[in-house]
């Protein structure tokens, strides 16, 4: 049966493409330190809004040479805006597995090897630089870590709460159900974004960045569990009438065990679809918070606060590459939705033809 679902899923080309893209983005986030030539805070202020570096494969004579980048000559125009020009006499060969900023592989093994880079004082900006001369490519990769992990962590927490609370409400029914459902409705009553802002205001301003990160995860999960709990509750109301629940009771299993082991697994396919379709919500919520400066703080990168740089029309006009984080948010959210929709088609018998 699992195989049938999988092959049906594979027939949906868009979903497969989405899954592959998600896989690549997540893998890139996981190995961000290694793939990125610089750390997220490595800055060189003279290179403010440096355009993407051109990688040259041929020298002036037109013969094929190992790839290199030119050094930059910085001039100012009449508005004191920087104009970057290649310095013909300064070449920095692009090399692989080079020494660079210190980091730990997966947080464990300390090393300084990066996939690619150029020798100092040359700098390589694959996708341009931001206002402080930090490499956008590196910051996007590091930002992906935060943006994607908030989605996954937030969903994990809010779904654990939602499944358990919904399971309890549905299993016991009656007064318990009434009380829990009214509480859920209270949470759902508030417009999400304002609740998000209000809760964010409660977080002390002196929190360090890790604490802020965790606070945001908790806040997002705090908002997200209620709607899931309602649906799970409805499923459990019908599941508890099934005979195997009665049989589990005659075995002397505790209520909690019956809920977790015997009832909730039946909601798995729905939950899986719901997970896929709600991760984008978390990514977007984190981005919105960071965009308005209430989320992840500089110098730490998230897609939201990277995009915050693109709020001025002047920046977009002269350094359009700073819109890239928005593009990545868009792609990721799209992929999750496409994959989630395909999963629903495959797993939910009600929507299949």
């Amino acid at each position, binding site marked *: 049966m699992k195989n049938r679902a999988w092959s049906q899923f594979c027939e949906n080309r868009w979903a497969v493409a989405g899954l592959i893209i998600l896989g690549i983005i997540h893998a890139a986030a996981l190995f961000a330190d290694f793939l990125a030539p610089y750390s997220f805070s490595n800055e060189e202020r003279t290179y403010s809004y440096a355009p993407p570096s051109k990688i040259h494969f041929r020298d002036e004579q037109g013969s094929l040479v190992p790839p290199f980048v030119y050094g930059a000559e910085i001039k100012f125009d009449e508005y004191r805006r920087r104009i970057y020009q290649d310095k013909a006499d300064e070449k920095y060969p692009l090399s692989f597995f080079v020494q660079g900023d210190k980091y730990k592989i997966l947080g464990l093994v300390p090393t300084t090897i990066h996939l690619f880079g150029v020798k100092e004082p040359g700098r390589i900006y694959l996708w341009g630089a931001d206002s402080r001369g930090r490499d956008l490519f590196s910051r996007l990769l590091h930002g992906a870590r935060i943006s994607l992990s908030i989605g996954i962590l937030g969903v994990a927490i809010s779904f654990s709460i939602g499944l358990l609370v919904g399971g309890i409400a549905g299993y016991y*029914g*009656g007064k318990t159900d009434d009380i829990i459902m009214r509480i859920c409705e209270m949470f759902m009553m508030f417009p999400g974004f304002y609740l998000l802002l209000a809760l964010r205001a409660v977080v002390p301003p002196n929190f360090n960045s890790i604490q802020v990160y965790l606070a945001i995860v908790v806040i997002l999960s705090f908002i997200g569990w209620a709607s899931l709990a309602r649906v799970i509750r409805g499923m459990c109301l019908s599941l508890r009438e*099934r*005979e*195997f629940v*009665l*049989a*589990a*009771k*005659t*075995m*002397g*299993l*505790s209520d909690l*065990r019956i809920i977790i*082991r*015997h009832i909730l*697994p*039946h909601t*798995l396919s729905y939950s899986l679809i719901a997970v896929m379709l709600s991760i984008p919500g978390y990514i977007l919520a984190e981005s919105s918070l960071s965009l308005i400066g209430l989320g992840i703080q500089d110098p730490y990168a998230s897609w939201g606060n990277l995009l915050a740089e693109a709020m001025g029309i002047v920046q977009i006009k002269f350094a359009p590459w700073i819109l890239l984080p928005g593009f990545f948010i868009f792609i990721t959210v799209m992929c999750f939705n496409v994959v989630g929709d395909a999963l629903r088609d495959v797993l939910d018998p009600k929507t299949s033809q």
Partner: protein
Amino acid sequence: MQIKNLAVSVNSKKIVDDVSLTVEERSIFALVGGSGSGKSTTGLAVLRLLAPGLEIKSGEAIFGGRDLLKIGAEELRQVRGKEIAMVFQEPLYAFNPVLTVGQQIEEVFTAHTDFLGEKRLEETLRLLDIVGIKDPLRVHKSYPHQLSGGMRQRAMIAQAVALKPRLIIADEPTSSLDVTLQARVMELFLKLRDEFDLSVLLITHDLGVVQHMADHVAVMNNGKIVESGSSGEVLKNPKHQYTRELLSYVS
């Protein structure tokens, strides 16, 4: 186990009325009746597992010196599965479709013992062997829908006897099986009674089954026991009109 004056009602209408019976040690007691006679409700009431809306109005269920209808929730949980186990009519529904048969039998050990994984597996395989399953390992790993009806019922019985309960309440254990399998499963019950020293409260509508197995029988109609006694006596010499009616369908 002794049930005294049990009454169950739904919306103040009594569906089990003043039922008293005694299941003696190591005996098989058959509770017979047509559908809707209240026999299954009696069985479930003893373990306090009635569907919401059904209410125990009065009565006692004395088991091991305690009244099961009055003891606390935790004490009751300890009785369920460990001292009184239940076998259902259709094991396909009584088994959880998303867990393997083995996992579900092991649930009994999880609930009442501190056996570790390996010990649980070993015990489960031993039980499956006792109930006459040829390749316990395969059955252990199978999902309920992958087994035949007979196998499933045997596995369900294995689950019931796992902790050597003193009483098994069997609610129509053979009704979903074909005739030859019915006989085998009933033989299994007899064998297990001798092996584990347990008594069986057999809830059934099938007087043919009663004839072969039961020591005592009580006939229920409309929530009341209309006739009871040793099975030989009742079946040979039925006193009540309803019993005669039931008997006339058998032969």
